[in-house]
């Protein structure tokens, strides 16, 4: 397997790198020194732009470009790191904060220096208890070692990092809902524009970036933008962590050069399928993206190619579905997640995911009726593009694509009043 050298996931090679001494002994905080010595903040932003680094939280927005949107009007600025990672299938940020928290902290200091933020927050998913503990401990270590606080390493730059724990809502990973939650409000998404870069936390210019995005900064500063561009494609350069789950031999997080083929990820990195099972479908980018089918395994994993194949790279949560799995069950189970996680702000998502889940559950339980599939398709049309935030659209990704690619399975459920695979998901509604 083409495992060269790991950058973001060095924790898989270096034991105890979560301890500051070990981190320091392995080039830790060298990138920070280099950033202070070699770059003015603006030059650092340019370097990140040149590297082509794109946000790893899902949308893939170019990070340097995002940073350059901050208005230069003297108001305080904030950096907020999104560690809410609640997307089913995605578990990379968890490993990054649990096993190498200093890498994130170093990346945050560099990013704050570049964006001239004086205060930075980590919004940590509520369920990540160990992650939050690790971050807390590491932040305290960083303060003790002079990497945080006033006048860091005599650079004249000062930064404080605060850790905030969420309360268990997927929507709080959406950046504007995250900011609401951080301010102590109900985690509902905000109207955009204004975007966080202009009016974010407490109305101030704010950069929101994913954990993995920020973790790219230390290697990027040490090795330079050209190095980053030696990997991946022109539009999707660099490294990406893919979380592989499902019946593979070695589920886990893998750092790949972008544009690595899906088949390579599954077969070489993740050790292939357990018991030689056949692959029925793959959800390549977390539960919010459409499924790819077995004949699409040669798709290169970069943003453009996955999009061209009809899905999205998203947050890199690669869920492999084997041929024994019922796609109606997959759709019903994932949709239920969105129903539970819909914040309730807008009508189509709130009511639509509820209704659609009920109908899917019925079909899955063998109680489907003729017309149900048309009804679901029509509901999806009434939700898609008509919701307030991307969660509502995300809810449809798997359902709509599964119905398209595996129409026969759905129809069989209705005709035979049972699951042709013999699987049976529990049938419930919110009322039960």
């Amino acid at each position, binding site marked *: 397997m083409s495992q060269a050298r790991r950058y973001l996931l060095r924790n898989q090679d270096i034991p105890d790198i979560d301890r500051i001494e070990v981190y320091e002994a392995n080039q830790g905080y060298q990138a920070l020194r280099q950033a202070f010595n070699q770059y003015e903040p603006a030059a650092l932003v340019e370097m990140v732009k040149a590297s082509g680094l794109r946000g790893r939280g899902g949308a893939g927005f170019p990070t340097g470009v995002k940073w350059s949107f901050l208005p230069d009007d003297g108001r305080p600025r904030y950096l907020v790191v999104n560690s809410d990672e609640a997307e089913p299938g995605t578990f990379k940020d968890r490993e990054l904060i649990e096993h190498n928290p200093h890498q994130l902290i170093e990346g945050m200091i560099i990013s704050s220096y570049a964006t001239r933020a004086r205060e930075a927050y980590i919004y940590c998913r509520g369920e990540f208890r160990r992650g939050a503990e690790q971050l807390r401990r590491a932040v305290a270590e960083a303060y003790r070692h002079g990497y945080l606080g006033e006048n860091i390493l005599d650079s004249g730059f000062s930064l404080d990092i605060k850790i905030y724990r969420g309360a268990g809502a997927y929507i709080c990973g959406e950046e504007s809902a995250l900011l609401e939650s951080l301010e102590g409000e109900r985690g509902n998404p905000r109207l955009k524009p204004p975007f966080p870069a202009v009016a974010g936390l407490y109305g101030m210019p704010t950069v929101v970036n994913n954990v993995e995005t920020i973790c790219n900064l230390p290697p990027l500063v040490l090795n330079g933008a050209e190095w980053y561009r030696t990997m991946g494609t022109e539009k999707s350069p660099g490294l990406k962590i893919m979380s592989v789950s499902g019946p593979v031999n070695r589920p886990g997080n893998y750092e790949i050069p972008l544009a690595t083929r899906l088949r390579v990820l599954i077969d070489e990195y993740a050790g292939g399928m357990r018991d030689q099972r056949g692959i029925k479908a793959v959800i390549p980018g977390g539960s919010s993206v459409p499924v790819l089918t077995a004949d699409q395994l040669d798709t290169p994993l970069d943003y453009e190619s996955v999009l061209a194949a009809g899905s999205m790279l998203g947050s890199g949560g690669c869920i492999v579905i084997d041929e024994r799995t019922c796609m109606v069950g997959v759709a019903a189970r994932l949709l239920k997640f969105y129903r539970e996680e819909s914040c309730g702000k807008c009508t189509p998502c709130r*009511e639509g*995911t509820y209704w659609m889940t009920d109908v899917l559950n019925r079909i899955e339980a063998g109680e489907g009726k003729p017309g149900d599939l048309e009804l679901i398709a029509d509901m999806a049309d009434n939700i898609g593009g*008509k919701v*307030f935030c991307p969660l509502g659209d995300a809810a449809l990704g798997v359902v709509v694509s599964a119905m398209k690619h595996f129409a026969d399975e759905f129809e069989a459920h209705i005709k035979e009043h049972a699951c042709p695979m013999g699987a049976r998901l529990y049938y419930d509604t919110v009322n039960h």
Partner: protein
Amino acid sequence: MIRLTIDDQQISVPEGTLVADAAAKLGIEIPVYCYHQALGPLGACRICLVQVEKMPKLVTACTTAVQEGMVVHTRGALVDKGRQGVLEFLLINHPLDCPVCDKGGECFLQDYAFSYGASAGRYDEPKIHKLKDAPINEFIILDQERCVLCQRCVRFMGEYVGEEQLMLEGRGVQTVVATVDHQPVVSPFAGNVIDLCPVGALLSRPYRYKARPWNLERVESVCPHCPVGCTTLATGRDGHVVRVEGRPEADRHWGWLCDRGRFGYDFAYLPDRLLAATVEGEERSAAEAQRTVGGWIAQAVASHGPESVAILVGGQHTVQEANQIARFAREVIGTERVAMVRSTRGYLPSALNGTFEDIERADTVVYLGGDPYESVPVVHLKLRDRYRQFPDLKVIGIGSWVLTRSTLPGQDVVVEPGQEVAVLAAALKIAAGEQEAVKVLTANLGDWRPSLTGVDPAAVEDRLRELGQSLLGSEHLVLLWDGKDAEMESVLHAIKTVREERSAVLPMFGPANWRGFEQAGIDPHFDRLDSVLDDCIAGRVTTLLVFGGDLLREYPDRRRAEEALAAVERVVQEGCFAPEGQEHYHAIVPGAGWGEVVGSYVNLEGRPQTAGAPATPPGQARPVRTYLLAWAHALKKNLVFEDEGRLPGMAAAARAAVAPVTRPGDLARGDDELVMVGNTEVMEGGLPSEYLASRVAEYPGRVSPQDALRLEIGQQGGRLVVEGSDDTIMVNAAPDPRVPGGRMVLPYGIQESPLNRIGEGATVKVYRREEVGAR
């Protein structure tokens, strides 16, 4: 200006206008639930979907700002399907309650479902069940199942009013509106959510099941409870007012009311409403009393001359009624002894009077003596609205307790009771002593310096200078005056004279329609009332006719009022309720009240507004004109009243000049003594209401926490004996951190604790009454 096309019609609107508003200007209806202009866009309900050419998806009209050359389609296959989808989603969990819903027929869900919805339902899964009768407070009930989660109510309370007492709870399809900490909502503005709710989720409890929209008469009216004169819609049924709603006026009012105005309409049918007349303590028919009183008046005029008859006007009478009374006095009787029943002594000349437009432009707002939130509540909301537009709004409270509050933060200059005028004069002297008007104003002030609560004596000078500069240097000054101290008029004149930029005063004092009475020809000056009472006491008046007002309750010196009544041979009262001290009245005749006669009210802006009559006078209650015509007949005079709708055009009182204000005497109060301070509070005094009973403060008196501790009344409050120089009253009082030590703030007009027995400004001894008991 931005030019765009909506449904083939062109329009130019200012930059930043939302498509929904631009369409409304063209008269094109775009359905909305969550959007409300006062609250701004939210984008939650998605019912306002429209199609904009060159945009990949439908957009919400309420969140999309216009752009040059934009082409918008508000109907069409795509839009209609989108809207139909949203409506279908809204209905899946909506109960089938319409036939029993109070909003049935006035509901936007029904309306839009009719206009844009599909004909048949496709939903046959189980519906979500939520709470159906969740009380928000004693006036408002919430049916969570009917709620469409537009958040108007939540945002109104939290963002608009600034009293975050409603919230969303739960998430997804389980989301419900709930009260914060599950405590009842206490804001006096909460009732507005009933009007704001686009569906039948938030309902008025007093109105519940009272009527169906199709057997109602909804007429335009005006709230009579305070001088704001909020515009309302009053719903009549079977001769009664059964509901009051806010009535928005384009570019002027959002239609907010306070709960005093919204729920305080039940006075009309309370058991103690006067339904028949009383003559010499005996119940009589109104017709008989009419004749008797007519005889009395005729006799008085015949034997003692027209000037032996005096007339007082107050209460909720309309301008037209007041004018009828004024004409009766002058044309039929020929007396000039006509005055207004007042409880405060101040007068505001029209030339100084501002309007709500001044609030919309103000950069500085000064409260003089009272807190608008308590005296003229909806003015507080207007100020809040201004503050939301203009966060730099400077708010200053000048009074004997802290007048500003967290929803409209400001600074306070807390003075010794009754020293507002002198403190302002001193501040003007420091800031602009060289000005002629200020010289005159402060001629008697000398080197007087106030003591200000919480201000070091050495810093008082600076504090006053700062105040003076705010008063004179601000760009657009609005002063809200409690009307207590008549000398304030000079201060207000001086400020206006010295200032270069605009200043405007809004009077917070009553009677609610005093400006209207003035226009009708009733002199509002307190001196005038005093001189009529002098005439009574001196025996120059033998017959006193009181219309509306309740002299003993309202006049600031009760003993003097009693003395005056006792000195008059015959006192006649017209009104909706028996006055206090009935033994002084020789005849009491039942009058028609608000909602029972068509007429106008002039509000604190000096703006006349018409109120219709959805109700009919109960029992033998008669409109004033009936009595006046009968009495004119008894005097064999011919009196003809014009159309009720027409307003009399009377000249405003002449403008006074700046006069020197009085230098305050030395403070002389013992450590255990308090000074009484009166306050106008809309929830207290005024017309009785059972609906509002729970809102009448259990402990209307307020003392400082330290004094409360000394008096041992605890956090909750307790019963105190307040001993004045020649009278004693009981007051239920509670600690209020806004009140400094050494004073007790007490609302006017509380029957159980009449401040006018003790007197405003009186130094009193206060001690705890042993047996504990709420009134």
